[in-house]
């Protein structure tokens, strides 16, 4: 769940009353998540980043003006807005350049990058190599790759490799744990809580 210090439900009211700080907090909290979702959906990081910013601006302009009916459903409202903009991205050109006084929102969103954008390509390869090297057996490494990359079923893989589902679970768990540790070490204290 969200950090207790992040009082999401207070943002609509604060933004309606002109609190730019709440707008920045909203952008930093929801921006990376929306961008991640859009990136997966659109397979176009640049377009996803643009649509994410559009989403935040549309939401904030709405909160500044008419507001939303249920403040406790802010996340759902943001999600629907992102979904709508993604589905109507062909009409995006007309929508741009109509926003005012939102540069702090764009800046806040850009300062909260996705984890994958913080890791260099070679560095990621090294961390993954190190994580799976510790699995020991070549069979376990193959299992991991075929599950995540080959999109093969756990049941089929267990049968083919002659292992139990419990062993399969352990392989994935150990790889994830080790990778998580390396990631935490690399990213520092800012991300340790979130990644634990």
């Amino acid at each position: 769940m969200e950090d207790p210090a992040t009082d999401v439900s207070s943002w609509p009211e604060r933004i309606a009353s002109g609190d730019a700080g709440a707008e920045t907090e909203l952008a930093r909290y929801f921006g990376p998540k929306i961008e991640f979702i859009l990136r997966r959906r659109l397979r176009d990081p640049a377009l996803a980043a643009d649509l994410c910013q559009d989403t935040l601006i549309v939401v904030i302009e709405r909160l500044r003006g008419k507001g939303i009916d249920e403040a406790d459903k802010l996340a759902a409202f943001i999600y629907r807005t992102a979904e709508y903009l993604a589905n109507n991205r062909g009409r995006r050109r007309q929508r741009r350049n109509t926003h005012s006084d939102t540069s702090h929102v764009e800046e806040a969103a850009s300062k909260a990058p996705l984890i994958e954008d913080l890791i260099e390509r070679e560095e990621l390869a090294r961390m993954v190599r190190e994580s799976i090297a510790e699995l020991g057996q070549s069979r376990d490494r193959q299992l991991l790759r075929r599950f995540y990359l080959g999109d093969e079923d756990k049941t089929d893989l267990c049968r083919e490799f002659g292992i139990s589902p419990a062993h399969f679970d352990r392989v994935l768990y150990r790889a994830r744990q080790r990778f998580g540790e390396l990631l935490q070490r690399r990213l520092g204290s800012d991300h340790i809580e979130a990644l634990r």
Partner: protein
Amino acid sequence: MTNVDSNPEARRIDDYLRGRLSEDQTRQFELRMLEDDRLFAEVQRVELLRTGLARLPDQLKEPAPSAAMPIGQREAPWLLQWLQPALSAVLLLAVVALGIGNTSLRQQLEESQAPRTGIPVITLHDQRALFPGMQGDADSSVARDGPVLLEIDVSAHQEQAFRVEIRSARDTTIHERVVPDARGYLTVYLPDGPTSVAVSTEQGEVVRRFGTD
């Protein structure tokens, strides 16, 4: 957490990242991710692991180049030495052939945007010839050699998703909530034989119709 993958949450994350959730389950999961920092972090971590794995196989399988010999001085196999000029010549010929091709720029653009499926794609350009009634007259049945993909321009309509009904001699197939691509086109698969297509809004208003109904 003693064992991530016996945990339903971990399985859910895997299913999400591997595209195994239904549309509705995906929306629910993403909405939950918006409200849950910890879940979002875990999803990012597993996605990063998948990305890293995808980049590894070649590096793991291929032996590292010999450090003793600079890259430019490595000895190529004799077959490669022979093939290199031949391949260069073939490439040059291909470039020349492409350069003098008489396909219009417009057609090239449409073709480059079409999905690559191995079966023909009927673009907007071709529809006008194949479907004289494409503006809504519905006066022609569709005769084709084999199945095709049909691209339907719905960019003039505001709806996010459409209902597509494909009627053939054998059966009728209905696709709900088909979302247009970035150009505002729907792409549908038409089986072999006479076929009619009706595109309607979710409220039931027919916006495009092709072929004999």
